């Protein structure tokens, strides 16, 4: 199903211009199978989330909820993997052809969130946020992330090292972040990630004595 997804940046730009011209009517008339099913589930989840009137679409809570749903459905029913998740082409297609109305409702007309910003494409960013924070089950992951904010999403995606994410490392950083949530150190997460970036210049976390867990503990204890 994924090998048929061809969606260049030029196609995305063209489609985005159409959406920009009349954003209120950007919901797709028809979505190609099997992505119609994906759309159905996601839209249904959006509506369920918004049944609670206190909850807002323009919120971290919405991103977390939709991220977990997207992650689960893609994995279970769409044979999704890291190789596909790394390709902007896949996310551009989903943003502009399957969920344009959803992206518009969440962010308005924002080309970075639809297709342009490689780490900013909304669906891509919430999928990677969940993937890099995954704690074995959806429940554990939700518990680990529930008290965070949109800042954690962008910090994690932007500051996790050059030349690719170390998935085991980011998962441990998120695990310990949750454990230390009670300590009221201002901007602890941001500072830990900055220190991590500096240390990664010379050290490989999985090769330190005690491994990644020790490495991450030392990052946090530097500020505690």
């Amino acid at each position, binding site marked *: 199903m994924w*090998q048929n997804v061809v969606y*260049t*940046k*030029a196609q995305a*730009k063209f489609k985005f211009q159409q959406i920009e011209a009349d954003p209120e009517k950007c919901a797709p008339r028809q979505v190609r199978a099997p992505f119609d099913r994906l759309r159905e589930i996601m839209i249904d989840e959006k509506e369920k989330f918004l049944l609670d009137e206190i909850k807002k679409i323009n919120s971290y809570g919405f991103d977390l909820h939709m991220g977990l749903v997207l992650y689960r459905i893609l994995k279970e029913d769409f044979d999704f*993997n*890291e*190789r*596909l*998740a*790394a*390709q*902007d082409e896949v996310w551009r297609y989903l943003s502009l052809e399957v969920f344009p109305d959803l992206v518009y409702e969440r962010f308005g007309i924002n080309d970075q969130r639809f297709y342009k910003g490689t780490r900013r494409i909304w669906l891509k960013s919430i999928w*990677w946020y969940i993937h890099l924070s995954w704690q074995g089950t959806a429940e554990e992951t939700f518990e680990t992330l529930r008290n965070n904010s949109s800042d954690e999403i962008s910090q994690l995606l932007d500051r996790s*090292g*050059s*030349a*690719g*994410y*170390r*998935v085991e490392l980011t998962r441990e950083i998120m695990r310990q972040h949750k454990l230390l949530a009670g300590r009221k150190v201002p901007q602890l997460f941001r500072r830990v990630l900055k220190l991590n970036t500096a240390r990664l*210049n*010379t*050290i*490989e*976390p*999985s*090769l*330190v*004595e005690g491994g990644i867990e020790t*490495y991450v503990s030392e990052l946090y204890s530097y500020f505690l």
Partner: protein
Amino acid sequence: MANKVSMNRLYDEAMEELVNVDTDFHFYYKDSGGLNHPLNQYEDYEFKTLLSNEDDSWDFVEKGFGISGNLKLGNPTSMFGPTQMVNADAEIGIALQWMSKQSSQRGVFPIETITSLTPKGIIIPIDYYFQQNKLFGEVHISLIVYLKKASRNSMRGQAKVPGTILGKLIEWVVILDGSGSTFPIVIVNEPDKPLWYVDFNYSDPLIEPFDKEYIAIYLNQAHHAFPSIQKPKTKIDEALYIEFLAGALQLILHNLMECSEWKDIQDGTNCEEGSIGQVIHYFKSTLNWDFDTPEKLAMSIRKDLETRVKTGEM
């Protein structure tokens, strides 16, 4: 990649000579029955490795690929001592590191521990398999040397923090998607469009790679002249092919000349590996394209392309 200043003694060329490293590696894939088959490798003009099997049936997306072989260290103990890379009671580790910016992932796999007692001529077998559902684009694979255990008596200039990377023994850049360093041509089928056109989507040419995501030359298969370019048969076809490519590349260069990073591109400074800037600088410095004036550029591009088409390089 930015230059890093290290306060530590590192694994450098002099150390490499002392240690006397010898490597013998090959790439392979496993078929559905678990049997290993060798992959042929050849290098493109940037020394990146392209893999294929005899009948071209291997596809990374279906089978993944592996690297296997032996690393031989003639004099491993020469890394140890008060004036060497680490002191005698330290431990050095050998690991396989892989990094793929396009896949947004990287990892490390520890292999062996070397101490001052490791025998001469030690042979370390290495085997690592990349599953098909993980990587996309390119992957940098290297064998690295790191400090596994620090000395209790580290000398000045010797690394003290375990996990510190001391150097690389060998590195490969393997291309998994794409055909190596070629021009970013996208075939389209649009009856109402001309034979070719270009599209720009780059925002930082010093970082973004020279590929169709950022700069694309669209070649239209709905145009009646398309077959002449796709498979040139006559001298006229060949000339048309060169004209198409030269025209498109000149447009790309003019577009880049107007951006604020142009000086860096010309000088080859601050350009990340594989970036638009680095490739354009390569055109200038190695292929002798003349960026001084549009007419000199037009002439030099055609001269270069004609030579390369004649010699069969393109």
